[in-house]
């Protein structure tokens, strides 16, 4: 069930928590642990930081042959999103279809159900992005 894997990622997945450098203000996502050879001082210069969730589509594609567990969503768009703070993340787009999308489009983070791991498993929640709510029109 990979319970520990999902649990460990909850801060990043649920609320887009990364890290910010205390001196330079640089933001990185996802958060990283200290790397081999890095001093304690250098590692501790990074503090937890919740990103704004604002960004724009850097590029996108549409998944038509979905991996196991995502078949019911297909076809669904996946994008590289350039976040307002700088990092580039890969994520599903939601509440939209291919025709709604363009490169450079403003998007915002939402927490959605990423995966159902089965009737005796957990529901995995995490970030997706959608076109900015107040700029969306429907077919109604």
């Amino acid at each position, binding site marked *: 069930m990979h319970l520990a894997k999902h649990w460990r990622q*909850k*801060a990043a997945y*649920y*609320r887009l*928590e990364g890290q910010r450098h205390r001196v330079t203000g640089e933001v990185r996502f996802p958060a990283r642990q200290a790397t081999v050879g890095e001093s304690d001082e250098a590692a501790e210069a990074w503090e937890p930081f*919740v990103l704004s969730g604002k960004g724009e589509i850097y590029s996108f594609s549409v998944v038509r042959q979905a991996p196991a567990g995502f*078949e*019911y*969503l297909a076809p669904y768009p996946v994008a590289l999103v350039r976040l307002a703070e700088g990092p580039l993340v890969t994520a*599903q787009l*939601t*509440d939209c279809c291919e025709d709604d999308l363009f490169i450079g489009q403003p998007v915002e983070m*939402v*927490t*959605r*159900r*990423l995966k159902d791991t089965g009737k005796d498993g957990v*529901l995995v*929640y995490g970030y*997706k992005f959608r076109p900015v*709510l*107040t700029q*969306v*029109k*429907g*077919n*109604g």
Partner: protein
Amino acid sequence: MQPDRPVGILGYGCYVPRYRIAGKEIARVWTDGQGGVPVQSKSVPGPDEDTITMAIEAARHALARAGLPARQLGGVWVGSESHPYSVKPSGTIVAEALGTTPWVSAADWEFACKAGSEAFTASMGMVASGMVNYMLAIGADTAQGRPGDALEYTASAGASAMVLGPASEALAIIEATVSYATDTPDFFRRAERPYPVHGQRFTGEPAYFHHVGSAARRLLSDLGRTPQDYTYAVFHQPNSKFPQSIAKQLGFTPEQTAPGLLSPQIGNTYSAIVFLGLSAILDIARPGDTIFLTSYGSGAGSDAYSVVVTDTLLERRDRAPRTADYLARQEFIDYAMYVKWRNELVVG
């Protein structure tokens, strides 16, 4: 019931999914389009949405309006009859997503369509007693109706969130509340069963009208008020007709209830609906306006509240999307897509 320490709403947030299904589309499948429909359309959760995801979005808006860091919340309480887990609280996941953990009371409330109202009244008590300064009360549901049942036309999805705190910091003050509850078998769902059933003759008059009417009349009497003393009123909305009928019986006018009457467009969002109606009113209300609110939950009970808008509303209103923004982004789907998303297809 009036709090010793005055309590108010510091921030409010709403959420309605993007998708809709028209009543006439459901009727096309089940009745060959014959007969009337109880609402024009209802909201449908997307395939990656549930009570928890909708609660999170509404809660983020409520915190944004309150201008309150999530860690200051003393509690995150989620009322729903469609918690995604039978055992594992929605409240902890919502609290984690907001960044409120670990020093917080996280809990789930249940009372059919009144679960959000339960969380709201209990949150009033927490603030009024001085045990905590700020509470987050959420009502959220992805309601289920048996395919072909009358309920399928109305059982919809949405969420509302209210940050409660000291009245001195509030955009609206909750003057008083009353609760009225009896054992009434009007609507229920046994454990392990997928769909609820109506308790035949108990639906309607002995359930909704008796409980909503009793709570509403008692609160008006306790405060020495009449319906004319209120600018707006919201009643629980299981369909379009019931809230308009009870409003008329009590002496409220269509002008008072129209801004908060959302069920014709989005159906019955269960635990969320009265607070979504309140959100829609707060989106347009002016300082000094008064709002009368009455919830209803099958089983059965009603909570009534009297609310007064303060000057603070004007500076906080535009910190988050309005209810109308969610109502406007409607994307209609057909019955086939609706069935696919509800996992009612056996794919093997």
